[in-house]
């Protein structure tokens, strides 16, 4: 099966806040029975972006989301979601935000389309039923009883219910945890369809590949603190990791006939020469000048590898349980 992207004619929802910020969090603290689990979080989610809270289990992702959804009152800090204080105005918020919890059930013995239709009746401006079924690829299962759906289908039904009120913002708490690769892939396709609607999406995950594939921006949350925020690339760079430049070691260099380039910390490991740098362009210029000087041509196998999110993430969370 291939990824399906569904596009519809309806224009993206208008920006809810004048400054283009859907979620605004400043100094967010949360304590349970004297133990502080969130130690002053700061981040923004911009309208129309997919923002991912990435972190290991127990980092505080779900607690953060529950505060933003208005289910928990924070111990300190300021939270605004679509311009509302979630703890004070949960009902108004839930008309404009779709919530997919990590785990919650469906009524027994109802059919897919029936349930979506019921959900549509809860909202002032619901999206059409057919469209919702298409977005989550459940059109063929519309008359199936919910209890007969697979785990992945149930998750996509979750998405359809959360989307039924045509919300400006959608919260997804660990949308694919415990799924097989095929189910994950279809969930991702559904989330990308949501993004196509211009919806702001705030999702949590402990899967790197999920964050990398879906998110415009990522915040790495660890032990109740945000370690880094930015695009996938920014997070990797700010994690202190350098870009890797490598090329096939020229035989003249290997045999010691020519000196290594000045000002570059080059490691010659057999057939491959590698250096790491934060200043890619300058290093490349130096390398190529050195190569020209010693008649090495354009350097065979020259490769520039951007730092990967995975490296940053593993570096930050190494030693954490889970």
């Amino acid at each position, binding site marked *: 099966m291939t990824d399906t992207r569904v596009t519809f004619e309806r224009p993206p929802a208008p920006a809810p806040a004048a400054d283009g910020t859907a979620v605004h969090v400043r100094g967010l603290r949360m304590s349970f029975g004297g133990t502080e689990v969130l130690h002053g979080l700061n981040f923004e989610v911009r309208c129309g972006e997919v923002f991912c809270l990435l972190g290991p289990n127990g980092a505080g992702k779900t607690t953060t989301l529950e505060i933003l959804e208005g289910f928990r009152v924070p111990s300190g800090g300021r939270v605004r979601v679509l311009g509302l204080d979630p703890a004070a105005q949960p*009902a108004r918020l839930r008309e404009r935000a779709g919530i997919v*919890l990590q785990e919650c*059930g469906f009524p*027994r013995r*109802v059919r897919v389309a029936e349930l979506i239709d*019921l959900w549509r*009746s*809860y*909202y002032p401006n619901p999206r059409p039923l057919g469209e919702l079924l298409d977005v989550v690829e459940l059109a063929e299962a519309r008359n199936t009883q919910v209890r007969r759906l697979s785990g992945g289908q149930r998750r996509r039904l979750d998405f359809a*219910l959360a989307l039924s009120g045509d919300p400006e913002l959608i919260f997804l708490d660990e949308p694919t945890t415990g799924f097989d690769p095929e189910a994950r892939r279809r969930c991702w396709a559904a989330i990308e369809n949501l993004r196509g609607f211009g919806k702001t999406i705030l999702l949590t995950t402990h899967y790197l590949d999920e964050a990398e594939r879906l998110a415009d921006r990522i915040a790495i949350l660890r032990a109740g603190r945000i370690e880094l925020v930015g695009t996938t690339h920014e997070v990797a760079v700010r994690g202190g990791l350098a870009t890797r430049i490598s090329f096939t070691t020229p035989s003249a260099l290997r045999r010691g006939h020519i000196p290594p380039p000045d000002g570059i910390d080059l490691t010659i490991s057999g057939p491959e020469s590698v250096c790491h740098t934060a200043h890619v362009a300058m290093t490349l210029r130096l390398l190529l000048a050195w190569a020209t000087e010693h008649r090495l041509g354009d350097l065979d196998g020259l490769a520039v590898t951007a730092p990967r999110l995975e490296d940053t993430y593993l570096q930050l969370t190494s030693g954490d349980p889970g």
Partner: protein
Amino acid sequence: MSRTVRLAVRQAVLEQRSFWRSTEYALFTFAFPLMILLLIGAANVGSHLPGTHIKNTTVFVPGILAFSVIVAAYVNLGSKVAVLRHDGVLKRIRTTPLPAGAYLGGLLASTVVTATLITACIGLIGWLAFGAGPRTGELLALAGGLVLGTVCFAALGLAISSVITSAESAGPVAYASFLPIAIISGVFDPTFSGLPAWLSRVVAIFPVKALAELLQNSYAVRPFPAWDLVNLALWTAAGGAFAVWRFRWHS
């Protein structure tokens, strides 16, 4: 307000639809009181209450009416809400702007529909099979008693749902918490007697006998059960207060 009512009606319609979709569950809910009505009723045909001209069946049939109200309102609603909570359906409802009143109103309305159907069924079959019907002019009082009983046991059903900790135990807990009381209240046996005095006083505290007596009064002339009305009102208030106090959206 009208939005809340409209949403409650929608909810009730879907509840009824899924209730009847679960054929064996729906049939059993109806078959259990019906079986008791026909089997025990047959054993009482031709007998009279000791020392009176009151036919056993005219006391027995309204007793089974009370029993079926309790099954529909207390057992069904109580275990239903416990399962909804355990399955995380209530938690999901809270993620929507649906007013809590509309949701619970829908569940209650569906319960009223089930209770109405089942009592109509029992009343009709009791009348056809045993000739036991309400006294002339008592139909309204009977309806009032059924409404009061449904409200009271629905409140108690919501209350017990908060005590039930798992979906598996929902049905057994709901049944086990009232069947013994129903038996010693004489619901299944019009001539039931011989309880020790202290146990009779305990039985008089519970609302099962109170509802049975209230309904029996519409079938056979008995002393006006003022205390039964007070009893049901108190249990309704207590059940409602406990249900509100202990209500949780998640397990």
